[in-house]
């Protein structure tokens, strides 16, 4: 089969790929969006049942599209996210090829060759928008668990009914881990949550959604080239937020109030015994301090912008309550814990990417999404790609506009060079 040809291949039909498609269409750049399943495939097939988006409905301003409903402050369920992105694809007439699995991306003379299970594409430019959360990260120590413990990772977990009876340990206390802990504990299975670095945040502050404050105060617009340590910023865990109809704050205090037990970071397994770090108090103290700084920033901004009369008065949350001497070990063969769920983050899958574009940590080398080692190739949809909001539904639009402008200039440059060569 001969390769089909287009100017730009966008790999991935989620919010990032669709936003880029819209920008390419605006510039009349011929392209195709390759999607391994249906549009919004990760949202459709790889998340737990109760998940709602962590950002409110209004905060989904995509190029040429936005929220159309009557509940701007609500949080989308998974089916609602899927419907929203389906509708976006339709409104912008995105040229999506569904059920097309990319098996390899290679550089070939003056462009790229994309191999898929539905044939090959040749293109001058390529956009990698396949997402940052394709594979659940599971620590190596999981291999040393006793065989009687059932394990699930954050992509396998769907709902508490999947689990047998008995105690459950959730490892990880960011948005994913705290949400698992809450619903599993409520299902009658006693939950212990292992807590490492996490970022505590109130859902609502001074009467407004925290995301509203971060958006209004410009925190979400902070640029990748203006912050001190971008590698660290790209690795930060997600804010400890949840999107529920009653807009509750799901922090560690909320969990312990329902009976969930806190233990330190899962540090190792020795003779069938789990070991937990003695740093729990400090992890919680640090998180409280960081949250205090974020709220200080918000308060300052509110004062400077004359909002103090309009919104509720500033307040602070109680410090995270940690018992005097949290347990440091647990016998995993005692039957106290029957299931362990790893909520220890996600990573992208670049197994199909056959180009020398990686650093020694397996990350793609890029400058704000412009690949260092592959001219005409772009990356999208990863945390802090160009801005703090880059991984949000609301953040991919600005990135798509910036990168599409760069891509268009690159194509112009190539065209000029070709004309020069022909003369």
């Amino acid at each position, binding site marked *: 089969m001969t390769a089909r040809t287009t100017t730009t291949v966008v790999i991935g039909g989620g919010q990032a790929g669709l936003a880029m498609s819209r920008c390419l269409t605006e510039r009349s750049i011929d392209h195709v969006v390759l999607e391994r399943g249906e549009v919004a495939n990760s949202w459709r097939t790889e998340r737990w049942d109760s998940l709602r988006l962590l950002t409110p409905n209004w905060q989904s301003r995509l190029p040429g599209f936005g929220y159309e409903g009557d509940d701007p402050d609500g949080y989308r369920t998974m089916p609602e996210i899927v419907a929203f992105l389906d509708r976006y694809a339709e409104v912008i007439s995105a040229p999506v090829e569904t059920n097309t699995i990319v098996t390899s991306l290679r550089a070939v003379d003056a462009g790229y060759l994309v191999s898929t299970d539905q044939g090959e594409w040749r293109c001058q430019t390529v956009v990698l928008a396949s997402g940052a959360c394709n594979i659940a990260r599971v620590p190596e120590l999981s291999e040393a668990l006793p065989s009687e413990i059932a394990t699930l990772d954050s992509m396998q977990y769907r709902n508490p009914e999947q689990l047998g009876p008995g105690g459950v340990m959730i490892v990880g206390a960011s948005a994913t881990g705290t949400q698992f802990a809450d619903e599993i504990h409520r299902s009658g299975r006693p939950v212990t949550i292992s807590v490492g670095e996490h970022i505590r945040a109130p859902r609502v502050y001074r009467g407004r959604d925290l995301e509203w404050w971060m958006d209004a105060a410009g925190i979400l617009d902070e640029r990748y080239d203006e912050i001190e340590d971008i590698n660290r910023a790209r*690795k930060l865990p997600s804010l400890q937020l949840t999107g529920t109809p009653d807009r509750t704050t799901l922090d560690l205090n909320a969990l312990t109030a329902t009976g969930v037990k806190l233990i330190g970071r899962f*540090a190792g397994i020795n003779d069938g015994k789990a070991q937990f*770090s*003695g740093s729990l*108090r*400090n992890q919680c103290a640090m998180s409280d301090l960081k949250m205090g700084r974020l709220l200080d920033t918000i308060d300052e901004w509110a004062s400077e912008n004359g909002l103090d009369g309009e919104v509720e008065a500033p307040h602070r949350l109680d410090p995270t309550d940690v018992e005097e001497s949290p347990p*440091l070990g647990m016998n995993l063969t005692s039957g106290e814990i029957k299931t362990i769920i790893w909520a220890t983050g996600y990573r992208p899958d670049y197994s199909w990417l056959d180009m020398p574009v990686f650093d020694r*940590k397996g990350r793609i080398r890029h400058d704000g999404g412009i690949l260092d080692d592959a001219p005409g190739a772009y990356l999208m949809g990863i945390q802090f790609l160009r801005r703090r909001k880059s991984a949000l539904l609301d953040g991919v639009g600005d990135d798509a506009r910036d990168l599409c402008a760069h891509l268009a200039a690159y194509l112009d440059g190539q065209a000029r060079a070709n004309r020069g060569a022909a003369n």
Partner: protein
Amino acid sequence: MADSQTTTNNGVNVQALLDARVALADAPEAAKFTWSASCEWKDGTFSESTVEGYFGLGENHKHKTVFKFDADHPAVFASEDRGATPVEYVLVGLASCLTAGIAAVAQNREIQLRSVTSTLEGGMDIQGILGMDSDIRNGFDGIKVTYKIDADASQKDIEALVAQSQKRSAVYDIVTNPTNVTVEVN
């Protein structure tokens, strides 16, 4: 047996330790010790720590001498190297604890020691403490202890001695198992 008891002398009063075990079984509160150190920053990365008193057997005690420990970072860290680095003190603590244990266990097992020397190596990738890579831990990625022991015992018995010393070592436990650390600012 009686004969070997008189000939084995590693300088450890094992009988006192065994007696203490019996006495403390009836008074477990007295077994609760608190070890203390204080530390004062001098300049740069240089600090001086002092070990003077401790609590145990229900009361405060003082060491015979006040012990001072200078700690600093070496020249390759752009420091002035006015003392051992803090992580070297951890190695010192582990070495001296294991070695004391070997002497005590040998005494109890009636093994005469002639020489016990050890070397310790703690590996560390300093990208961790420099904050360059959060996948790399700050602390040692491993500690290797190598003993050379000359004693009136078979190789197997010497190995059992070293193993038992690890089993009963406070510092070995501190280094190999987690410990709750509470840091407050007054």
